[in-house]
């Protein structure tokens, strides 16, 4: 399941250009529609930085967030049945046939990216729209993004947009101190 660096052919990643996100929440709606996620939970959300600076020079950034598809996911580490696994191309997934619903992964996730879907009785989390990838389509949140803030692709492919952005700009990840090595990058 987990592959060491070098062996993996692909590593899907998301890069968000923060200056292009204006908090329209289109990605949140698109995800809900695409994956039929019931209210009140959501697979993705937008965090607001709050007002910065001093009048009249004020600023605010919006950080779209979801499962970070970590290279070393704490949710996978604590899963007692091996239901949570990391696919060879770096997507953290849940095998519902194995999941017992102990919610340990929800507590272990530093990003609070998982939640209980009571309607379908499953753990709900971002899959990078796994079902669309074989057709070469981007995840729903990327496809719908009006400001073109979101970028998706294989970060190990140097010609991909995500690899280019990460190489050229100064990317950061959330809660680096958690040691999870996320595949969800932010650039300004």
């Amino acid at each position, binding site marked *: 399941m987990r592959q060491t660096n070098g062996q993996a052919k692909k590593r899907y990643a998301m890069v968000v250009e923060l200056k292009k996100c204006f908090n329209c929440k289109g990605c949140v709606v698109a995800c809900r529609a695409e994956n039929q996620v019931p209210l009140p939970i959501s697979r993705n959300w937008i965090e607001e930085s709050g007002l910065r600076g001093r009048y009249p020079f004020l600023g605010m950034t919006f950080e779209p967030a979801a499962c970070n598809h970590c290279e070393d996911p704490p949710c996978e580490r604590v899963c007692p*049945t091996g239901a949570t696994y990391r696919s060879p191309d770096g997507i953290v997934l849940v095998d519902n046939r194995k999941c017992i619903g102990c*919610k340990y992964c929800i507590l272990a996730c*530093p990003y609070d990216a998982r939640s209980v879907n009571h309607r379908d009785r499953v753990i709900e989390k971002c899959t990078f729209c796994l079902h669309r990838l074989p057709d070469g389509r981007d995840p729903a949140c990327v496809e719908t993004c009006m400001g073109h803030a979101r970028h998706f692709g294989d970060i190990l492919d140097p010609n991909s947009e995500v690899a280019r952005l990460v190489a050229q700009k100064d990317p950061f990840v959330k809660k680096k101190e958690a040691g999870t090595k996320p595949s969800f990058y932010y650039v300004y």
Partner: protein
Amino acid sequence: METFEWGWLIVLYLFFGGVGAGAYFVSGLAIYLGDGNTYRTIARWGAYLAPFPIIVGSGILIFDLFRPWNFYRLFLTIQPTSPMSIGSWILMAFSGASVINALLWIPADTQERFFSQKRLKRWKGHFEWLWAPKTQERLRRAFGVLGFPLSVAVALYTGILLGAIPARPFWNTPMLAQLFLFSGISTGTAAVIVLTSFTRKHALTGDQDAKLLYTMDILLICLEILIIVPFLLHAYLATASIKDSLHLILGGPYTLLFWGVVVLGGLLIPLLVEIYEIYPMLFKKHMHHSRALEVASGILVLVGGLTLRYVFVFGGQVSSFDPKVAILGLGMP
């Protein structure tokens, strides 16, 4: 976290796990230290008690899953990095051993009578070796000693279960496992104190039994205090997220429960009561006899142990890497 994913059922389970482990541990210690005549009451009642909390607790655990029909999946795999996976296997071994241990303590004549029923008569020949006094005593000793590693493992794992999650800083300290271990064994001892206080008639053996139980419980309470102090120090001197999580019990919503019920009511008061009861034994052969005090100190320890788990299960879920959450102090459920 905005919601509490683990609730009262997990609190109860962690508590029952500790009580069962403690009862088995005390029972094993009693038969290990006893010479065949002493400490029998403790060994017997501890052995009888041990399986029940564990079985009830395991039932609660399965009931709390939201995909419970899949629970057998726990036993199709071993996930070395998951405390829950390791814990399930430990729990299974513990349940099996504690049930057998409890059955071994059923008096020989009761066992013989059981197998003398009409329907079971043809099995009697196969089991007769079991209630030969020598074999039975040997088996009891073997299973009693087997209880040491098993019960320590169960009590320790309940703490590691919480402590293994870096995302919840209030839990994520190496001290939590030890705190739950000592607290678990202590609540088990307290349960045996309450249980046996009603069976004690004999002054002499009674006092010996009480001395063993009290000595153990005093020791364990002191160990708990010796863990809580470095826990607070460590958290206070640690990184921002851990330090902020400490606010939960230092001024935050769990302050009164932690200091009032856990520390004062569940540790310090029972400690003083137990010392008061036992200190005459330093100079005389007898101790203060008061069933009321005995039961009261036992129940206080049990309530303290339950509250400790409540504080940690709920408080830990509020704590987060993002110190904002802990400072705002999302309330209690």
